[in-house]
């Protein structure tokens, strides 16, 4: 099982979610929004290093996480995603200086928005992954998958168990 991918993320430490058991037989669908300059490059690197990470994630590339709008996140849930996470450069290392910091604020806002409609706020998180951190990319993918497995299917598509 994946360890908590530490350093920078909106995941609390310790993470009470990981104390739960995963919902048996559930394979979540997770949307990963990764920025071109860091996290997407890290994903590439993970691939060329032949690192294993769960097939549950679907990666969308954005020029910068600062481009991420809460609407993208809501749309993902509306279309059936069980979890969404945004992966940007490390704080202080954003190619556009502060795009990832704006993204983080929006992630907290998105948590509120999905909570209002009855989804667990833990379904949305933000991670910071440097371009050189291929292994961390794989780690984060595994961690988020494990977390969402514990949350179970999104309440709007229970049937997918």
């Amino acid at each position: 099982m994946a360890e908590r991918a530490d350093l920078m993320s909106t995941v609390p430490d310790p993470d009470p979610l990981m104390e739960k058991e995963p919902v048996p037989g559930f394979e979540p669908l997770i949307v990963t929004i990764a920025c071109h300059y860091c996290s997407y490059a890290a994903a590439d690197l993970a691939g060329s290093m032949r690192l294993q990470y769960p097939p549950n994630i679907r990666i969308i590339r954005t020029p910068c996480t600062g481009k991420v709008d809460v609407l993208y996140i809501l749309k993902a849930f509306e279309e059936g995603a069980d979890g969404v996470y945004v992966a940007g450069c490390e704080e202080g290392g954003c190619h556009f200086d502060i795009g990832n910091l704006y993204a983080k604020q929006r992630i907290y806002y998105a948590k509120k928005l999905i909570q209002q409609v009855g989804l667990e706020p833990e379904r949305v998180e933000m991670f910071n992954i440097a371009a050189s951190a291929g292994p961390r990319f794989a780690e984060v993918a595994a961690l988020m998958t494990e977390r969402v497995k514990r949350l179970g299917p999104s309440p709007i598509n229970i049937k997918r168990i």
Partner: protein
Amino acid sequence: MIIAEQKPLEEIREMLGDAKKVMVLGCGACVTICFAGGSKEVGILSSQLRIAAKKDGKELEVIEDTIERQCENEFFESVKDKMKEADVVLSIACGVGVQTIAELFPDIIVLPGLNTTSFGRPKEPGVFAEYCGGCGDCILDLTGGICPIARCSKSLLNGPCGGSENGMCEVDPKTIQCAWHLIFEKLEKMGRLDQIEKINPPKDWSNSMSGGVRNIVREDLLEVKLES
């Protein structure tokens, strides 16, 4: 501009009741600037409504649209057919927009998605502050350009009261600046402290809402109708 904020989602859903087809209609003016009722917010709110309905296993179709201004008749031309198709129109314009729809389309059920709060401006990114109370008798000339009607929690005309501390108002020392502290500093800077000792007389509130509904008629602008 007019400042507004979205009503709690729960309240909106309650208002919508069992409507099967809802049109969320945004406004491209003030409420777009204050991120309460522009096309972006139409998208977010509509998406939330759809997710919530799916979660509850309810049937709901949400149509989205935004027009330039909801307070003027002519902008409804492009959306009026769509509006009529919906069971209800959820307007996320200010209260004026909602009422314009109610007046122009007596057969359409229109619901307010926002709480309209004040006249103000985006003071800094993410901060929308109240600046004017629409008192109908502007006295900014006396107060260094800072409005004590809207920006003093007690609308005092001869402040500051005893609750002013470190520049902040006792009503909420975290978010409300004391208007009279600002006025004092401004007048001091302008070398017009004599002004602060002049007693501002009781205000004539008859120009405000206290005098009844205020409709302005400009004869020169009235529609000219040809006698047939």
